């Protein structure tokens, strides 16, 4: 049981940066960034290639740089060339498939028995048998802190305002093209970081490893926003992190309940659907309760 919770926590933290990326692009900038799937794989590919040449730590910033470039292309397409934002992400995503194959040189690159951030931590005897969780959680918490700090700077405020009221941003002498570009670069860098960590965790990178990533991250995001709610930036970022972990716990519970592996995508779809529908259902239930009470009260009066 403990190992299940441990691996669910690990997965929760591993994939949390993707949810944070969507938090930035989808919740804050109000852009559905479909680059995510491809960027996740690109991060893994760059990370794996770096590990093959013996640079597991350098792999993380390298992956983030590469995926930030992918985000830049998406942003360039939509801000400068007038491609609708969803389409811009899809176009980049398709192109990334070939780029990812090029980076890896194969469709499945194993880094088994190569040094990774996890083997380094294990060999240093860091955090005992919890070393994987400790390393991942450490990195993700740093990302969370940096993200919250970043969103409080003037540039961060400008990015938030761009998704809230682009007219006002322009009137404050900020170029929305610039804020969208920075936002998408930062978001995709986070997706890339997640891909980089996952590749080292799994000891392989796979060209199809990002399929459906945007939907899963969206589920984590929505679970977080539904359960933790909106409020200060700290609360919202922690909510996303919490959502990512909770999603993985539910997923593990399903696995534990002997749901066949073939059905896991269906389980994911149900979790996503339920998470997104939850606020509406809750509102509907509350309204029905109120209505019933009001009608009952009226009957008593008569």
């Amino acid at each position, binding site marked *: 049981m403990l190992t299940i919770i441990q691996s669910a926590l690990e997965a929760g933290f591993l994939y949390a940066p993707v949810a944070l990326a969507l938090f930035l692009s989808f919740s804050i900038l109000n852009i559905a960034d479909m680059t995510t799937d491809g960027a996740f794989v690109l991060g893994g590919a760059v990370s794996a290639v770096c590990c093959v040449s013996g640079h597991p730590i350098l792999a993380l910033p390298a992956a983030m740089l590469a995926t930030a470039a992918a985000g830049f292309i998406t942003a360039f397409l939509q801000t400068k060339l007038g491609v609708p934002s969803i389409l811009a992400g899809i176009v980049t995503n398709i192109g990334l498939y070939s780029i990812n194959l090029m980076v890896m040189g194969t469709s499945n690159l194993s880094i088994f028995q190569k040094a990774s951030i996890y083997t380094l931590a294990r060999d240093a005897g860091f955090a005992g048998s919890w070393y994987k969780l400790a390393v991942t959680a450490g990195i993700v918490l740093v990302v969370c802190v940096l993200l919250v700090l970043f969103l409080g*700077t*003037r*540039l961060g405020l400008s990015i938030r305002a761009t998704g809230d*009221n682009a*007219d006002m941003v322009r009137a404050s002498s*900020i170029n929305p093209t610039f804020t969208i570009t920075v936002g998408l670069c930062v978001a995709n860098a986070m997706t890339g970081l997640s891909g980089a960590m996952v590749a080292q965790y799994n000891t392989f990178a796979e060209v199809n490893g990002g399929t459906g990533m945007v939907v899963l991250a969206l589920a984590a995001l929505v679970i977080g926003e539904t359960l933790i709610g909106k409020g200060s930036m700290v609360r919202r970022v922690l909510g996303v992190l919490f959502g990512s972990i909770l999603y993985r716990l539910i997923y593990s519970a399903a696995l534990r309940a002997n749901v066949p592996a073939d059905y896991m995508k269906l389980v994911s779809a149900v979790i996503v659907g339920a998470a997104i529908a939850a606020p509406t259902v809750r509102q509907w239930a509350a309204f029905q309760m109120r209505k019933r009470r009001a009608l009952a009260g009226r009957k008593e009066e008569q």
Partner: protein
Amino acid sequence: MLELRNLSKTFNPGTVHEKKALCGVNLKLEKGDFAAIVGSNGAGKSTLFNAIAGDFFPDEGSIMLGGEDLTYLPAYRRSRNIGRLFQDPMRGTAPHMTIEENLALAYLRTAKHQRAFFSRVSKADKAFFRDQLARLDMGLEDRMGQSVGLLSGGQRQALTLLMSTMVPPKLLLLDEHTAALDPGTAEKVLRLTREIVAEAGLTCLMITHNMKSALELGNRTLMMDSGRIVLDLKGEERQGMTVEDLLQRFRAGAGKELDNDRILLSDR
């Protein structure tokens, strides 16, 4: 301060929807001029503002502000020197951000902060924002941590006014900025506008459908029709003008009969 020369714009040229929105507008505002613009719907008042603010580039003509040629500058660059309020109080502020965060963004227009991407709102900034909010006399200085979305339309418009003038712009554009507010609030926002404009000696253009304030506010009254400025009143000529006279001049200036169905002018 502001000089428009032969400013022209045609939308959808060469199609059945062709619309000559601006036809060679010439206008010169001196520093400290406060001009009210009246005119029927579709006369080109808002289009003129959009052209000055940079929402589109003119087909012909030039826009000069304080000696700088703005004609081909993008909107966000112009906004360093141009403050703008719209009729819709929702357009000027970001609803999901706090009052303080909104003010911090507006403050970005200062040259000092242009490149300070990673700077945060300092204690001194906060104190400054507080002082500025206090002058609105709406109690907003005690609600700086609240989302702007919680404010009423009038409060949001007053906040927008503050945001566009906190760093004094070379030109302030007011596009019927009190039209969506209730009479009491409208009066308050108008009074604030007058105070702030007078205090900072701002150069200001204001669109209004209120003939009375068009004659009372500021020192010039302009009238537009069919993409042209057809009347420019100032000095003594303006002082002797009544609302009824202004309507008369409208007919004379436009050179056609007043069509009551189309031209909605309030003489309130």
